[in-house]
C-alpha cells in the first residue's frame, strides 16, 4: 500500500509540475481515441478517415474546451453517415439537435459524457461513466448519461440501416426512415440501459453520501453490483445470454478503473478519524474529520563513498576551510560529506 501511495505522490508531483503540458497531451490522446473509434465504427468517408485529418482534429481538441471536442465528434459522425446516406445523416442530425436543446444544454460541464459513453461502449466498459458520475457528480448527471446511451444506440441502428439499398424514391426514403425509428423506439435494450445506468448513478451517489467508513469504496462496489444485476436481468429478459460474461468482466474492469481514479483523487485514512463536538448559539455540532492519506515521496540522493581513499580524504579534510558556524555543528557524518564534496570538486 505504501508503495502505491508513494507512486501516487510521484504522479501528482509530476502532474503539478508539468500540468501545462500534461493536460493538452491527455486531451489529445482522449480525442484521438474518440475520433479513431468513430472512424472504426462508422468510418464511411475515406477523406475524414485520413490520418492528417484525424491528427489535426485531435490537436485542435487538445487546446480547445471539451465542448468543441464533442461538437467535432458530432460533426464528424454526421459527415461519415452523410457520405453513405444523406437521409440517415439528416435523421441523426435532428436527433442530436433534439437531445441537445431538450436535455444536454442544461448540463454543459458534463458534455464530454455524451462522447465518452458511445466510445466506452465500443470498448465494452461503458459502466465506468455512471459509477464515476455517481461518485463525483450529482444525480443530474443522469441527463447526459441517458443522452450518451441514446447516441450510441442511434449509431448502432444507423450501422444496420446503411446496409439497406435505398433508391431515391420517396417511398424508399420513408421506408428507411420508419425502419430507423421503429428500431430505435422498439429497442428494449436501450430503454433498459437508461434505467440501469440511472440506477447505477443513484445507488453510487446515495451510498457515497452515507456516513459510514469506506463509503466511497462501498459506493463503487454497490454501483458495480447494481450494474451487474441490472444487466444480468436485462440480458436474461432479452435473451442475450452470450453477452453476460463480457458484461460482468466489463463491469469489474470499470469498477477497477473508477477505483484507480478515486485513489488518485484522495484516499481516506479511517484509522486517524477525529471526532469533535462544539456548539454555537443555534446548533450543536458533531464533527467527524477523516484525514486524507498523504505521503511525501522520498527523495533519493545517492552518495558514493570510496573506501580506498578514506585516508587520503581525511588528510584532505584537514585542508578544508571551516568557518565558526561549521565547527559548531561539526560531526563525523558531515566530515564524510565534506570529503565527498571535495572529491567531486576535484573531478
Amino acid at each position, binding site marked *: 500500500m505504501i508503495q502505491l501511495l508513494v507512486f501516487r505522490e510521484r504522479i501528482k508531483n509530476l502532474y503539478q509540475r508539468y500540468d501545462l503540458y500534461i493536460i493538452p497531451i491527455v486531451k489529445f490522446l482522449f480525442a484521438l481515441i474518440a475520433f479513431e473509434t468513430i472512424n472504426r465504427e462508422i468510418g464511411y468517408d475515406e477523406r475524414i478517415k485520413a490520418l492528417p485529418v484525424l491528427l489535426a482534429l485531435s490537436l485542435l481538441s487538445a487546446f480547445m474546451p471539451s465542448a468543441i471536442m464533442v461538437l467535432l465528434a458530432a460533426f464528424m459522425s454526421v459527415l461519415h453517415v452523410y457520405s453513405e446516406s444523406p437521409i440517415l445523416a439528416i435523421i441523426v442530425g*435532428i436527433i442530436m439537435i433534439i437531445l441537445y*436543446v431538450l436535455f444536454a444544454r442544461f448540463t454543459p460541464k458534463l458534455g464530454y459524457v455524451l462522447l465518452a459513453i458511445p466510445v466506452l461502449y465500443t470498448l465494452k466498459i461503458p459502466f465506468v461513466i455512471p459509477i464515476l458520475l455517481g461518485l463525483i457528480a450529482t444525480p443530474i448527471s443522469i441527463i447526459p448519461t441517458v443522452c450518451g446511451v441514446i447516441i450510441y444506440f442511434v449509431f448502432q441502428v444507423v450501422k444496420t440501416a446503411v446496409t439497406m439499398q435505398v433508391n431515391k424514391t420517396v417511398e424508399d426514403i420513408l421506408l428507411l426512415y420508419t425502419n430507423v425509428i421503429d428500431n430505435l423506439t422498439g429497442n428494449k435494450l436501450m430503454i433498459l440501459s437508461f434505467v440501469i445506468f440511472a440506477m447505477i448513478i443513484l445507488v453510487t451517489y446515495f451510498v457515497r453520501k452515507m456516513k459510514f467508513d469506506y463509503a466511497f469504496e462501498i459506493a463503487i462496489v454497490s454501483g458495480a453490483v447494481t450494474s451487474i444485476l441490472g444487466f444480468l436481468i436485462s440480458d436474461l429478459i432479452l435473451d442475450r445470454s452470450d453477452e453476460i460474461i463480457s458484461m460482468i468482466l466489463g463491469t469489474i474492469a470499470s469498477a477497477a478503473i473508477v477505483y484507480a481514479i478515486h485513489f488518485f483523487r484522495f484516499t481516506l485514512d479511517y484509522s486517524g478519524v477525529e471526532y469533535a463536538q462544539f456548539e454555537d448559539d443555534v446548533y450543536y455540532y458533531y464533527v467527524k474529520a477523516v484525514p486524507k492519506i498523504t505521503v511525501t515521496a522520498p527523495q533519493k540522493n545517492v552518495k558514493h563513498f570510496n573506501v580506498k581513499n578514506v585516508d587520503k580524504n581525511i588528510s584532505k579534510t584537514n585542508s578544508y576551510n571551516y568557518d565558526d558556524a561549521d565547527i559548531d555543528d561539526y560531526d563525523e557524518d558531515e566530515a564524510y560529506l565534506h570529503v565527498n564534496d571535495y572529491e567531486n570538486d576535484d573531478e
Partner: protein
Amino acid sequence: MLNYRKIRIMHKLAVYENKEGKEDIQLSKYYKTDYVRYQVLKSIICATVGYALILLLIFLYQSEYLVRNAVNLDYKTIGLYILGIYIIIITIYGFGSLIGYSLKYDASRKKLGRYYKLLNRLNKIYKEESPES
C-alpha cells in the same frame, strides 16, 4: 519587500477568477429577475425547437397514414393534443428553469460575496501600504 498576505489573497482571487469565478462574474452583471427571465426564455425557445423537431419526426413517421386519411382526419382534436402537450412541456421547462437558475444565481452570489470580501481585504492592504494616497 514581499507582502505574503497580499500575494496569498491575490493568488486566491486569481484562481477563483480563472475557474468558477468567470461564470459568477458574468452572472453578477445581471439582476436576478433579468437573469432568470432570460434563461427561462432561452429554455422555452429551446423546448419549442425540440418539440417542433419531435413533431416533425412523428409527422414524417406517420406521413403515409396522414396522407391517406387527409380528408377525414379530426384536425381539431389533433391540434388540441399538440397544443396541450406543448403547454405541458413549456410549463415543465419554464418552471424547471425558473427554479434551477434561481438556485444557481443565489449560489453564485454567495461565492461572489466571498470574492468581494477578499477584494476588500486586498484593498485595505493597499491602503495600509500607501497611506498618503
